[in-house]
């Protein structure tokens, strides 16, 4: 006999993510989840991004890796609270890990919470962390067809950051083709090309982030009012 269940496989993670999302709303925190392949430049992007903030900005970073706290040490140099999540082999962050480390770090809003996921284009896309948005990074040393090979994450991300554009003269990478492929999967995805080495595109990127932050703050204010 067939009994209908109708339950999300990741319902427990979804429940925790909903708790986090409410907490972000209550405390006026903008949480952004950065996802890419290993080596696409998530940490370098965050370093350059942190360097652009004023020292008294309310910003915190959670960074996930299978092993080592190398990324946290790199990111801590900018004077903002940073916490390494060592997953010990798990290929993605989940809502429970984020909640635990957020509590231990003691970060309180209002502010900006940047979450650097484990380098992986597959698994992190399934796990909601309560974030306002996912941002996917694609570097010019990868293939233009990555959006077609990993549609899930490009479908779920609101912004594609093309990274390492300073290397474009040295590689056969066609940014227009990469964007065309991303928009085959997700026609509305935003797109900004950046270089964390030269700073190219950072005005647009920081403007995008700031606009999102303001939008979330306005929504939070409207909810309170």
């Amino acid at each position, binding site marked *: *006999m*067939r*009994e*209908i*269940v*109708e*339950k*999300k*496989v*990741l319902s*427990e993670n979804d429940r925790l993510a909903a708790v986090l999302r409410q907490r972000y709303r209550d405390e006026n925190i903008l949480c952004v989840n950065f996802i890419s392949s290993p080596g696409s430049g998530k940490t370098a992007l965050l370093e350059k991004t942190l360097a652009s903030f004023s020292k008294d900005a309310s910003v915190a970073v959670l960074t996930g890796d299978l092993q080592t706290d190398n990324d946290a040490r790199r990111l801590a140099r900018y004077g903002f609270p940073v916490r390494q999540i060592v997953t010990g082999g*798990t*290929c*993605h962050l989940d809502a429970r890990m984020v909640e635990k480390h957020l509590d231990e770090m003691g970060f309180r809003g209002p502010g900006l919470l940047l979450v650097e996921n484990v380098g*992986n284009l*597959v*698994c992190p*896309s*399934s796990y909601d962390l309560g974030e306002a948005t996912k941002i996917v990074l694609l570097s010019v040393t990868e293939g233009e067809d990555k959006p*077609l090979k*990993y*549609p*899930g*994450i490009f*479908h*779920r991300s609101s912004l594609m950051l093309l990274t390492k554009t300073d290397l474009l003269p040295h590689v056969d990478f066609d940014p227009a083709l990469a964007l065309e492929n991303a928009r*085959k*999967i997700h*026609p509305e995805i935003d797109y900004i090309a950046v270089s964390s080495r030269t700073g190219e595109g950072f005005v647009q990127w920081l403007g995008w982030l700031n606009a999102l932050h303001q939008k979330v703050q306005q929504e939070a204010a409207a909810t309170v009012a």
Partner: protein
Amino acid sequence: MHEIGIASSILTCVESEVRRRPEITICAVGVRIGELSAIDKDALAFAFEALTRDTPLEKVRIEIEWLPRRQKCLSCSEEFAVKDLDLNCPKCGDTRTTCTGGTELDIAYLEVEELCVKS
């Protein structure tokens, strides 16, 4: 890649049902996996079998329904399964369509019986 974790979450659901109703025998768990869910169907089936092997739940089968990405046309409301990454409406040709399905990662049903034979 994370199919072991997904299989483990499915198994948790099966186990809690068995604990709740010890009198039943669960023969199969039916799951729905969408094309955009980033789950490999074969890897999930393999992971589920590996996790249940030599356990009291060894006889539980996993039945996976694979769902394509679906879009709905904003102009004529046609709903269609996406083929070859073509998001345009096959009926009226409009390019403005919105995603209505394909991200599923759901437990749909349990097959509950008295006698169970794993095929």
